[in-house]
């Protein structure tokens, strides 16, 4: 008998053989088994997604840790000035000879000081602008020293706006001028004299860079961030449980993460080329759903800190109102000299880009709301954990180091914040009541109005879970 014949005999007699079912096997039993089985349609893709996410985050964390240190170069300060639109003309003036920077006469006042000689000295000249006097107020023309430094006879340039100076008073003083001649021209001419007597600066400041706080940056509990170098924790608190016992669990978790070259906003500036670190500390109470003990829900209290070090770029905009006063001396033969004071108001909008190295820290408190899905029920088990923690930024401080400036401190007020974390945890039973948790994951935080920068930090959490 050939091999094929042997196979053929078995095939022909057994291939379509039927066997009677025992009492244990029935269609109803199959359907009951089927309905008892959890639907894997949604669970599988979710688990695959989370697994992939964990894989990517682990790879990203590995890559981040291999990356080089953050840039620490301090760049210089640069600035530019943008003339703003002039104010509405309210005083006596004509349209001739308007200054190129659109400054306009704000008002005119007249007074008569002591009698002076024909030769008068110009004093207190720091800056000047063109001013047009109303023809009706002038009979003779004298010398014009407008826009010119008396000593050098060079045109005067606008004085840089000093944002730190704020004064509110104007004290125009009569200025002695030398009237080099009296005009024989009987036609009305204008004596132009522009002397900056005083400036009124009303500026707005975005960042106070005046306070010096020292070279050292604050440390915070588990991490530290110093200029030019940032190190960070690698531990942090979070949660766990035991299904075999009661449904109530208390969990402490500590998690930490960091990323490099991300973007973080700080006081209106953007921190780049930086190493940012974050720590999360949470205490939570969790309970297992009676209908599905694999699912845990919980809430608690949390505290989160971020720190970072990197290059800060800020755009500072200031609007400055500048009021110049001028005294005009009108000399008329045979008549006492007449003095007139003209106020020139201008608005200057200034945008300044500043770069420097900043070290910062932020602290937030929040209310973590947690959803856990448990995989396994032994001394070694796993879980997928998602936490959303709305909260508030309660503390923020940074020290900026920039060229030409002393280190300066910045601080901000309270703001709403949102923290979130997605982790895949390994739970190791230490005893009947306690489990140790190690949970790699992705952390996210944002502040009110700053969410567009989306901060995602790969990190690792560790914690303890106690069952009751």
């Amino acid at each position, binding site marked *: *008998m*050939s*091999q094929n*014949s*042997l*196979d053929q*005999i*078995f*095939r022909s*007699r*057994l*291939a*379509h*053989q*039927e*066997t*009677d*079912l*025992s009492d*244990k*096997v029935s*269609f109803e*039993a*199959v*359907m009951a*088994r*089927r309905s008892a*089985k959890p639907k894997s349609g949604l669970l599988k893709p979710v688990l695959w997604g989370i697994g992939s996410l964990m894989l990517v985050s682990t790879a990203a964390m590995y890559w981040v840790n291999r990356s080089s240190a953050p840039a620490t170069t301090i760049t210089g300060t640069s600035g530019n000035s943008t003339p703003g639109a002039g104010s509405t003309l309210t005083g006596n003036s004509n349209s001739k000879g308007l200054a190129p920077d659109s400054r306009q006469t704000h008002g005119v006042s007249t007074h008569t000081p002591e009698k002076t000689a024909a030769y008068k000295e110009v004093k207190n000249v720091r800056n000047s602008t063109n001013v047009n006097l109303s023809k009706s107020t002038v009979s003779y023309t004298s010398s014009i020293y407008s826009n010119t430094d008396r000593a050098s006879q060079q045109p005067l340039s606008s004085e840089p706006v000093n944002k730190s100076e704020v004064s509110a008073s104007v004290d125009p003083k009569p200025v002695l001028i030398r009237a080099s001649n009296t005009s024989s021209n009987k036609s009305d001419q204008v004596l132009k004299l522009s002397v900056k007597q005083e400036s009124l600066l009303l500026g707005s400041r975005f960042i106070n860079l005046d306070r010096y706080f020292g070279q050292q940056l604050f440390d915070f509990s588990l991490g530290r961030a110093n200029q030019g170098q940032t190190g960070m924790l690698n531990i942090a608190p979070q949660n766990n449980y035991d299904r075999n016992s009661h449904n109530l669990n208390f969990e402490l978790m500590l998690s930490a993460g960091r990323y490099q070259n991300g973007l973080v906003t700080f006081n209106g500036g953007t921190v780049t080329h930086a190493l940012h670190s974050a720590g999360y500390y949470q205490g939570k109470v969790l309970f297992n759903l009676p209908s599905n003990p694999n699912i845990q829900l919980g809430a608690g209290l949390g505290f989160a800190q971020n720190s970072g070090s990197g290059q800060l770029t800020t755009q500072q905009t200031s609007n400055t109102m500048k009021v110049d006063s001028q005294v005009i001396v009108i000399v008329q033969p045979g008549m006492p000299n007449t003095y007139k004071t003209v106020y020139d108001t201008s608005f200057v909008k200034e945008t300044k880009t500043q770069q420097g190295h900043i070290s910062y820290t932020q602290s937030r408190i929040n209310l973590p709301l947690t959803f856990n899905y448990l995989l396994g029920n032994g001394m070694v088990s796993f879980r997928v954990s998602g936490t959303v923690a709305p909260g508030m930024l309660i503390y923020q401080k940074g020290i900026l180091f920039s060229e030409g400036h002393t280190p300066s401190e910045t601080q901000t007020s309270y703001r709403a914040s949102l923290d979130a974390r997605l982790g895949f945890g390994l739970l190791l039973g230490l005893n009947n009541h306690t489990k140790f948790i190690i949970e790699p994951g992705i952390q996210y935080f944002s502040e009110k109005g700053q969410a567009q920068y989306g901060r995602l930090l790969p990190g690792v959490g560790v914690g303890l879970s106690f069952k009751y």
Partner: protein
Amino acid sequence: MTDQELVQGCIKEDHNCQKALWNKYARKLLSVAIRYCKSQEDAEDVLMESFVKIFDNLSKFKGESSLETWMRRIVINNSINKLRTEKITQDVDEALPIGISDKGFDEMNVKELMSMLDKLPQGYRNVFNLFAIEGYSHKEIAETLGIDEGTSRSQLNKARKALQDMIQKREKINL
């Protein structure tokens, strides 16, 4: 009802169609499972588990093969997986010549054939079942069982030799 109508009904979770499918194929598939499993209980467990999978995955049935072939493959895979969880090991031996008379073989009934298969080592039994009865190629067997094609060939020959010995012994007893 045709197989196609049954499939469409089962996809729509029609209880009657599901029951009709069960009634039509359960006995046949139990026989398949029995040939691979170590016991009747295991085979019945495999059968029910297989039907759960069949009902869950009928929407993935493309009609590239017959419905029965598709379901048999599920039962076979489930049976082999069950054996794997029980850590059934397989040995590889050299190929052996076959020599058996048609007469003695023809006289054997299904029960005897099943009894002979049961006596085969699990590895030989799986390969023989897949190759001789299900019509799998050695490549398919290798993929299904996770073994080399050479191992499949070797175990098939070993199974045949063992069956031949059993038949020869039976002939001697009958004489």
